[in-house]
């Protein structure tokens, strides 16, 4: 029967034919435009109206923004003599102030180095195919960055490391002999005692013996995007662990712990950030004894971190709540204790669900740092005013906010894209 067809059919395909390209009117840009913009008469009209508006806007805006704008000039008047467009010369001429504030120019290498090292420190956290040993550098980086930016003796950061090591030893010892919670308390106690009584004498003794250090730069010299990054990045990095702890505490069975966490979260969330900043900048001045040198930037960082932590806690609580109860029960059934279950089963899943919310909080925090301009810290928004008040640049209106907005957009956009990449990478599939 195998040759039946050979007798009845004149042609038999011996192999599959290659697919023909789609008809010419359903491919290419023209078809794409037709499908997306002109598929119905209503779409066509709307497309023409919107496209026209965009064209008119660009027609009006581009000459001012791009074609006629001036990038090099000594003052607004010079700009006006050169061309009629935007005077971005203010950005180029005051670029250092917008980026570094009043940081001494001969020391610019320090914040730049800190920024580069920050990228190195973030790398192993953001990409898991890098060697895990790099995490040690990430752990040391905060102190290194502090030392680079503020300068001073190297013994300060080194002694902080010593304090952390000591606190860890205390934790291990007490956790082994009593229990982990008491161990944690012991570690905190060691830290507090160290900072209160031992830190300053030891540091001053060591630095008088061997004086290794960088030229100190005080906080009032910091400004521009440098201060945005210092506050924003510190807040982002510190708020995530604090937020996780608060979220776990809020879901805890221990009534006191739960009450403290709920109270903290609700209190901080119930207060606008600007109020906390005013507390940091003015109210604390009344509480602290005269002559106390409690750095204003540090105060602001603490407030911003507390604020972000409360929001972070709620975001992560959402992630915890979204986990099926079976996950908790399965962890218990495996005989894991609370910390094992949390670390191995609960948090990896809860954090993955929470990524959009976490990054949302990060981006919000990063942008909220501009509120510090209201309490007189000259971040990019704050530093616009003294620049605009100078004789050369008085009369500048749009150019500075455009530049600052652009820089903020770039960094927030990068954060947002990274989070989407991260989500896709971690998508182990609950949806499909």
């Amino acid at each position, binding site marked *: 029967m195998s040759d039946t067809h050979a007798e009845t059919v004149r042609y038999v395909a011996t192999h599959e034919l290659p697919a023909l390209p789609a008809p010419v009117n359903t491919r290419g840009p023209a078809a794409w435009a037709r499908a997306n913009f002109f598929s119905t008469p209503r779409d066509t009209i709307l497309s023409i109206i919107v496209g026209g508006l965009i064209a008119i806007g660009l027609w009006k805006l581009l000459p001012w923004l791009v074609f006629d704008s001036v990038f090099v000039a000594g003052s607004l008047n010079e700009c006006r003599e050169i061309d009629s467009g935007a005077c971005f010369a203010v950005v180029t001429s005051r670029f250092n102030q917008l980026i570094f504030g009043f940081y001494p120019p001969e020391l610019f290498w320090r914040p730049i180095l800190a920024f580069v090292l920050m990228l190195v420190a973030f790398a192993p956290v953001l990409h898991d195919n890098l060697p895990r040993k790099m995490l040690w550098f990430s752990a040391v980086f905060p102190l290194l960055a502090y030392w680079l930016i503020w300068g001073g003796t190297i013994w300060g950061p080194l002694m902080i490391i010593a304090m952390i090591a000591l606190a860890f030893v205390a934790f291990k010892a007490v956790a082994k002999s009593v229990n982990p919670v008491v161990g944690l308390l012991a570690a905190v106690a060691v830290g507090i005692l160290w900072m209160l009584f031992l830190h300053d004498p030891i540091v001053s003794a060591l630095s008088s013996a061997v004086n290794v250090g960088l030229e100190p730069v005080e906080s009032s010299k910091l400004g521009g995007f440098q201060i945005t990054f210092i506050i924003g990045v510190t807040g982002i990095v510190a708020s995530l662990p604090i937020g996780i702890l608060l979220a776990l505490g809020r879901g805890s069975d221990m009534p006191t712990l739960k009450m403290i966490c709920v109270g903290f979260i609700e209190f901080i969330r119930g207060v606008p950030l600007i109020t906390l900043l005013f507390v940091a900048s003015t109210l604390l001045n009344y509480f602290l004894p005269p002559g106390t040198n409690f750095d204003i930037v540090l105060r602001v960082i603490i407030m911003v971190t507390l604020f972000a932590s409360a929001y972070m806690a709620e975001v992560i609580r959402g992630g915890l709540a979204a986990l099926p109860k079976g996950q908790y029960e399965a962890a218990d059934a495996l005989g894991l204790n609370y910390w094992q279950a949390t670390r191995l089963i609960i948090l990896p899943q809860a954090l993955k669900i929470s990524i959009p919310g976490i990054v949302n909080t990060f981006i919000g925090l990063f942008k909220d740092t501009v509120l510090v301009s209201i309490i007189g810290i000259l971040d990019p928004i704050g530093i616009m005013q003294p620049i605009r*008040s100078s004789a050369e640049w008085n009369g500048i209106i749009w150019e500075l906010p455009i530049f600052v907005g652009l820089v903020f957009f770039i960094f927030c956009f990068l954060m947002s894209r990274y989070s989407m990449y991260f989500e896709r990478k971690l998508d182990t599939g609950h949806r499909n």
Partner: protein
Amino acid sequence: MQSSTGTSGEITGQTALVACAPMSISTAAFPRTFLRYELFEQGNRKGCYPMKTKLLSLALGAAAIAMTGTVASAATLDDVKAKGFLQCGVSTGFPGFAFTDDAGNWQGFDPALCRAMAAAIFAGDSNAVKFTPTTGKTRFTALASGEVDVLARNTTETFSRDVDLKFTFGPVNYYDGQGFMVRKSLGVTSALNLSGATICVQTGTTTELNLADYFRANNMTYEPVPIETNAEAQEKYLANACDAYTTDASGLSATRSAFEAPNDHMILPEIISKEPLGPLVRQGDDQWADILKWTLLALITAEEKGVTAANADEMKASSTDPDIQRLLGATEDGFGAMLGLDNDWALNAIKAGGNYGEIFAKYLGTDTAVGIERGLNALYTDGGLMYAAPIR
């Protein structure tokens, strides 16, 4: 020594009372130093429960805020000398009055006064000063809490700020007042011709109220165009949304100077309100207030007498005018010592940035971009209000 021991014993007594007393006790009766002391002592005292003391300290903090600074820090001068620099509160930016140059240094009419003060205190070192930019919201707490030693931030002297907020104002260093700016093409030469005009005015300010008062008093009508910020005002005014723009005259000058064609606009001669701007310090330290006051008066006296930054040394050596001799410390009267400073205090203050007239000309005068006439701020001999009490 005797008195200081007595005082500290007394503080401790008061502390115990405050820390453990019911909250109804009026804390306002205690000077602020006690409050601070109390906050750090209370934790150790028996009978005061942490929660209660926390509430109490909050209440005390609130009381301190309500009082907004009754700091009687014993001797600001000693503190300043000990730390080696003057901490000066300035504006975050106001054309001519405070701005940063390309190198990031604070410049302007207000920082210049702080530099003169620093020079008077630190034997001619006009760089022994650090500037704290303050906003309209933080300026008074910054001064009251001791974050800055002196506030030179184009601040209008008013009754409530002097009496209720417990500050001491130095002499007025700039007499400002509300004015009007119009396009020259409008053909108006006096504010009295503005009846029926549309006027851009910042909402929620005394400017708005002054405007209403002025027009009512002169039986004129106007149509307000409410705006929020100076930048918005510039836009609206240039876009012909209003015939006139009203704000403080110094602000009008600065705004006008930033226009592409400033000569198409004019500031009308009428000034309809009083805005005496001056530097200020905390109330309760008369020596410190005197240093501020007499540094400024020395700068004005120097202008009266023709002493400039350039010729001050020479004048000290050669002048036979007894006023100049006393001002520059060429006599043995010891005025500097009476202030707690050295004999060259005024000489150094003048050499820091020049006399009052030089400072004015450098940052605000008609040769600058801001371009303000001396007007009320001329010496009394030129028909202005600058009249320095004699140094003798």
